[in-house]
């Protein structure tokens, strides 16, 4: 269905090819997962499929890409609209109309289908993706998962043979991600659509894939194979696979269910160690009994008349890492913005380092609390990393070189001349984090820090956060990433509908929760294990 023959891509002004000599054949009806670290050319590979590379992006493509027999050299993207549907990373950026139903019809109108055909297909698509209740809703009023499903529906109505998705679940909470993946499953099984999917969150998608393509970048050829074969050596792997590698299971399990069936002997080996591990986790928690860094007392925050926080009370000490979890729209981001004074509580009080953050301005504020927003780029203003660091030093009147020193510790080897937009996601996060940390705020807030990070970058982030906590920072992170929370959090707070529904040590809150339990915990429950590193350490110690 899709065939890459000796394809190389060089962008204008780029010195090295993004893709070099790629050969790939995707047969009809397969779901193929594309994995690889950030910056290895995954997005470029996907955009080649419908000719956006090079017709739209510019650059030079050598070799040949054919989709359903059509050569992308001869057909620009609009001529391929009836065979390839491409869903962009941020669905909102690709919407052309303002209502759900019109959006679904847009592609069909463009290729000139008859009105009765369009009507029938819109109804079928509404049913297929469970969008019937949303048909008359404005697109801006939809939640993240709903938007993603509308974006998929919008390209499906032209009955493409190939569906291409770039990180469809990275911005979604676990529940919404399930929704989208279930819809994709149905397309593959019932309609025989060929799906090419790039995703960092392997723990969510790897079990659905028929084959996995690893993009190494740096000129090495693609690695293609069955999921459980590829996962044995892949540079990126979900926790369940890492657990399988550690325990030496063969074949390597890809799903929690398979792993549970293989985990009997491991569970027996771990049983005597579990109590000790749990005691140690509790013990670290008591050591943290430091000075209070932030308090939120019965805070009510409203957006217009809609309450976003309904009487939230929480206090955190220096040295703690608190993960705030909950579905999209539960009030996580509102809680963080209230802590930096972007919202003034309607009732109740908020204090950071003894002061109400909404009264603080400028340096007063950034010396007490720092927030890395969901889109770290928002914080960056300069044209190069060097200038960014210098302007950050000026902002917090620190000695020249302070920010640069922090950056060198978090992400060594970033050149001064690089434009912040040309950095990888992980490096950009590190830069934003350095800008915030230059002012040495005792309280550090991170909103959804692992969005778009690959496993390697995530591991570095985990190390960084642990070091910061050990230095006496109080770290609060709002996240959907249960694996991250399990790895670093000393405490987990679950928000639902603006209220705190759980607050306690990570082990207590997360184990047994169907939504927030990490994979390792699902495999080994009822034993309170959260991460592979923990288990590895316990096994070595015994």
């Amino acid at each position, binding site marked *: 269905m899709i065939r890459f023959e000796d394809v190389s891509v060089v962008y204008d002004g780029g010195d090295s090819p993004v893709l070099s000599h790629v050969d790939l054949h995707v047969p009809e009806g397969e779901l193929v997962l594309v994995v690889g670290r950030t910056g290895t050319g995954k997005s470029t590979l996907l955009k080649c499929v419908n000719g956006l590379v090079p017709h739209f992006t510019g650059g030079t493509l050598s070799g040949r890409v054919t989709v359903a027999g059509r050569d992308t050299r001869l057909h620009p993207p609009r001529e391929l609209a009836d065979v390839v549907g491409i869903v962009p990373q941020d669905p909102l950026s690709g919407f052309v109309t303002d209502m759900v139903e019109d959006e679904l*019809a847009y592609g069909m109108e463009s290729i000139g289908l008859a009105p009765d055909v369009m009507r029938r297909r819109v109804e079928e698509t509404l049913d297929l993706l469970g969008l019937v209740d949303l048909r008359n809703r404005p697109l801006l009023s939809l939640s993240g998962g709903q938007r993603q499903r509308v974006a998929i529906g919008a390209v499906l109505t032209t009955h493409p043979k190939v569906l291409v998705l770039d990180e469809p679940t990275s911005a979604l909470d676990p529940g919404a991600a399930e929704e989208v993946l279930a819809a994709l499953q149905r397309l593959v099984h019932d309609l025989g659509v060929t799906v090419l999917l790039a995703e960092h969150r392997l723990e969510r998608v790897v079990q659905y894939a028929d084959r996995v393509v690893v993009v190494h970048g740096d000129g090495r050829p693609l690695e293609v194979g069955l999921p459980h074969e590829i996962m044995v050596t892949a540079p990126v792997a979900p926790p369940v696979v890492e657990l399988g590698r550690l325990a030496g299971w063969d074949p390597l399990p890809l799903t929690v269910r398979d792993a549970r069936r293989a985990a009997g002997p491991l569970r027996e080996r771990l049983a005597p160690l579990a109590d000790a591990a749990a005691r140690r986790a509790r013990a670290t928690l008591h050591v943290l009994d430091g000075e209070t860094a932030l308090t939120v007392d019965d805070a*009510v925050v409203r957006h217009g008349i809609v309450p976003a926080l309904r009487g939230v009370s929480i206090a955190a000490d220096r040295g703690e890492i608190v993960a705030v979890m909950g579905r999209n729209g539960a009030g996580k981001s509102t809680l963080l913005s209230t802590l930096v004074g972007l919202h003034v509580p309607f*009732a109740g009080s908020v204090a950071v380092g003894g002061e109400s953050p909404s009264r603080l301005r400028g340096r007063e504020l950034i010396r007490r609390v720092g927030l890395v927003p969901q889109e770290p780029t928002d914080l960056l203003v300069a044209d190069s990393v060097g200038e960014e660091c210098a302007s950050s030093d000026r902002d917090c009147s620190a000695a020249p070189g302070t920010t640069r020193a922090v950056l060198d510790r978090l992400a060594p080897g970033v050149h001064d001349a690089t434009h912040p937009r040309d950095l990888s996601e992980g490096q950009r996060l590190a830069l934003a984090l350095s800008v915030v940390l230059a002012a040495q705020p005792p309280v550090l807030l991170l909103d959804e820090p692992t969005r778009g990070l690959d496993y390697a970058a995530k591991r570095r982030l985990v190390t960084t956060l642990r070091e910061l906590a050990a230095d006496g920072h109080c770290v609060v992170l709002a996240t959907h990433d249960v694996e991250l929370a399990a790895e670093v959090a000393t405490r987990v707070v679950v928000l639902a509908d603006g209220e705190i529904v759980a607050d306690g040590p990570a082990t207590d809150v997360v184990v047994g929760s169907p939504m927030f339990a990490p994979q390792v915990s699902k495999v080994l429950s009822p034993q309170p294990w959260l991460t592979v590193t923990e288990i590895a350490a316990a096994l070595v110690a015994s």
Partner: protein
Amino acid sequence: MTRRTAHALGDNALPRWTHPGAWWVWALGLATAASRTTNPLLLALLVAVAGWVVARRRPDAPWSRSYAVFLRLGLVVIAIRVLFTVFFGSGIGEHVLFTLPGVPLPDWAAGVGIGGPVTAEELLLALYQGMVLATMLACIGAANSLASPARLLASVPSALYEVGVAVVVAMTFAPQLVGDVARVRTARRLRGRPDRGVRAFVGSVMPVLEGALERAVDLAAAMDSRGYGRTGEVTRRVRLASSVLLLLGVVGLCVGVYGLLDGGTPGLIALPLLVIGVLSGVVGMVLAGRRSIRTRYRPDPWALPEWLVSVAGVAPAVVVIAFAVIAPDVLVGPVAPIGWPALPLLPTVAIVVGALAGVVAPRPPGLAVVRDVAPVTLPREEVAA
């Protein structure tokens, strides 16, 4: 939807979108009526009618909240008109309310006075004239909140389609731009920089523009991948013919309209030019439209409700224009001498007919569902606080 169901009226009809063209005809009719009278009672009645129809038939969508914005804009217009009279008025009239210190101006500015006596008559006149503009704005606002701009543009001829898309995209960009500004301001605060004032504004222009540009590129890629701009095959001759005809049409229209309005040009030249312009324009559009292979998904029908809505708007316009010829006095708000305005029977009835639009038009989809939702209640602790 079958032909017959499309003809059902008001609450009897199944919820559906009323053709946006009908709403615009209706609103422009009311606006025309407003432009021909300064009678404050009739103007207030027009605003009330427009407001009532909006309240009854407004869909639940982001663009449908513009009526209040236009009303506020109208109040601003009235305020500006009155303030101008206070400062630059000529002081004609008997009842002097107060006198501002005058500023002597050089000779070349003769005819413009600053300050001086302010009379009740001229203030009242300014108020009435301001009300005319405000009422017209309210009518436009009503059309804006009743008719989806996207659906209106979807019913333009296919030759104009690409212009339509550009406008729709621009309109969806506006709210996103507001969101961008908020984000950039937040980021400035987080960097410890001033987030208010002129410097903050200057500092946030570039990031906001960058964001908008990036989104534009994303959108263009998405539209391209979804088949935007696929064209059918047309011969070179047809393309040439359509261009020539369209050009002729524009020239004919401009000269014709100018001739008609100017009055100096004999009507015998102006009218044929106008007709030729319109005709060649229409033929040119049809030819140009052949290139586009687009089809329309669920086009809004133009059925009985649409006719009645249009008539409900045109009727006040016709009656008020007729009265402006027959009995112009009753349409003027009495200024000298100051008096209570009359309420002429026929124009009043005609304007009330305009409210029929709110009865005959079908309910917009989604509204019925929204009404079933319980009103938003605040949790008790918030009320207590």
